[in-house]
């Protein structure tokens, strides 16, 4: 029953989907490739949306990942502005939001994720999320209109980058985080505290351990009421409270979904169907756990892997060390590995005071991760140790 597809359709035209298409061509696949994207824009890079494009340093075209000409050269049929709404595995057909049905042979599911929103803010001007280029340009226009105060809900990586970019524009910024420290649930409280200090050093009004009770305004947002009763006047609000994988279109298709599309270790979902990127959940055998990774690096690598798996059953498990970077103010923060907040943490290079350091995380005698503040070289060296399954002691003794 399993065979090699003669044509490949990719649903989702962001980083994972585009990498899938490009990997097929690089590997010499000569069959038709169709790339279907929900957004009207050709594929673009998302990291600059919270930084260079939002800051106004880049025009959006600089974030483009490809253009019509390149897609045509690679003979990738690009269909943008079309959202998949249904999948029929038996008939091997997709349904699009226009009602059109599209047959497929091989399929890569790369529909990504969307922002969580706060209920009750629909239609209130000045309330933003940041995921797409359109989101970015709407927020940028609001930042250019010289608001009195920008309030960011959620001090995760997107929220932190938006806060940093808004400060870079000279705007007053409040950053509200429900956890005791920013990213504490990921990095642990000691490193979370370092992140908190970076924000405060740059003049951000950081409020931690407090939630948002409601966002108020008549036509446009005017103020935010926090769970501790504090009221902050703000005319721009950015909600950065995580994402939800886009899987609803698979309801009833027989594709198993549990906070993401369930894949095997090689990214296979069903016969001649694979998944990649923010939407894919797969067992990463290097860590012995199932994960869904929302990082740039994973989308690129998994997109290529999922495409290759379609063509070659011999393509093995995907076992990366997850890695990402976040640029905030003048700091480049990088994390590699799979850390838990209660892991042991040791600074192995530089110092917390200078905010220029590498710290490694360990659990059960093994190195689980590395966090770097302006230490890309060390992060990559320790990342290699994580990949090798090095002991925590050996990692502590290593010198880079």
């Amino acid at each position, binding site marked *: 029953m399993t065979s090699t597809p003669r044509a490949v359709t990719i649903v989702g035209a962001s980083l994972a989907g585009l990498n899938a298409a490009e990997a097929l061509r690089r590997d010499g696949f000569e069959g038709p490739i169709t790339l279907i994207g929900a957004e009207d824009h050709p594929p673009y890079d998302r*990291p600059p949306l919270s930084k260079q494009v939002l800051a106004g340093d880049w025009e959006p075209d600089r974030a483009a*990942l490809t253009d019509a000409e390149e897609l045509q050269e690679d003979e990738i049929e690009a269909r943008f502005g079309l959202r998949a709404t249904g999948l029929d595995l038996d008939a091997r057909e997709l349904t699009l939001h226009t009602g059109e049905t599209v047959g497929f042979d091989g399929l890569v599911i790369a529909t990504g994720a969307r922002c969580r929103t706060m209920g009750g803010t629909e239609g209130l001007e000045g309330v933003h999320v940041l995921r797409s280029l359109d989101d970015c340009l709407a927020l940028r226009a609001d930042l250019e209109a010289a608001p009195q105060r920008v309030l960011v809900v959620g001090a995760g990586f997107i929220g932190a980058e938006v806060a940093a970019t808004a400060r870079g524009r000279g705007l007053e910024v409040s950053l509200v985080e429900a956890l005791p420290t920013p990213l504490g649930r990921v990095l642990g409280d000691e490193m979370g505290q370092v992140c908190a200090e970076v924000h405060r050093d740059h003049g951000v009004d950081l409020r931690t351990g407090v939630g948002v009770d409601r966002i108020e305004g008549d036509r446009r947002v005017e103020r935010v009421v926090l769970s501790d009763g504090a009221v902050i006047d703000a005319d721009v609000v950015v909600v950065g409270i995580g994402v939800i994988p886009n899987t609803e279109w698979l309801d009833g298709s027989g594709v198993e979904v549990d906070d993401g599309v369930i894949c095997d270790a090689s990214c296979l979902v069903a016969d001649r169907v694979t998944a990649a990127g923010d939407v894919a959940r797969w067992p990463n055998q290097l860590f012995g756990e199932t994960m869904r990774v929302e990082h*740039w*690096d994973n989308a*690129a*690598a998994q997109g*290529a892997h999922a495409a290759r798996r379609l063509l070659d059953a011999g393509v093995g498990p995907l076992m990366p060390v997850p890695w990402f*970077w976040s*640029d905030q103010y003048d700091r*480049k923060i*990088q994390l590699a590995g799979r850390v838990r907040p209660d892991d042991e943490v040791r600074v192995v290079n530089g110092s917390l005071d200078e905010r220029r350091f590498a710290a490694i995380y360990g659990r059960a005698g093994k190195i689980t991760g590395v966090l770097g503040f*302006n230490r*890309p*070289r060390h*992060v*990559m060296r320790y*990342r*290699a140790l994580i990949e090798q399954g090095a002991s925590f002691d050996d990692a502590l003794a290593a010198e880079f």
Partner: protein
Amino acid sequence: MRIVVDFDLCESNAVCMQIAPDIFEVRDDDFLYILNETPGEADRVRVEECVQRCPKQAISIAED
């Protein structure tokens, strides 16, 4: 093959350094240094991987 890095794009994420530490090095000054601008054909696969995996698409290969 000659390696070309657009240093206006490079953000020193050091992905290339992990793939090919004998060719790329990010030093403590946070800048990327190319240790070998003209690697041999034996290194082509690794260099191409660097080109593809660079988060800023800052690396390219010139054939001259």
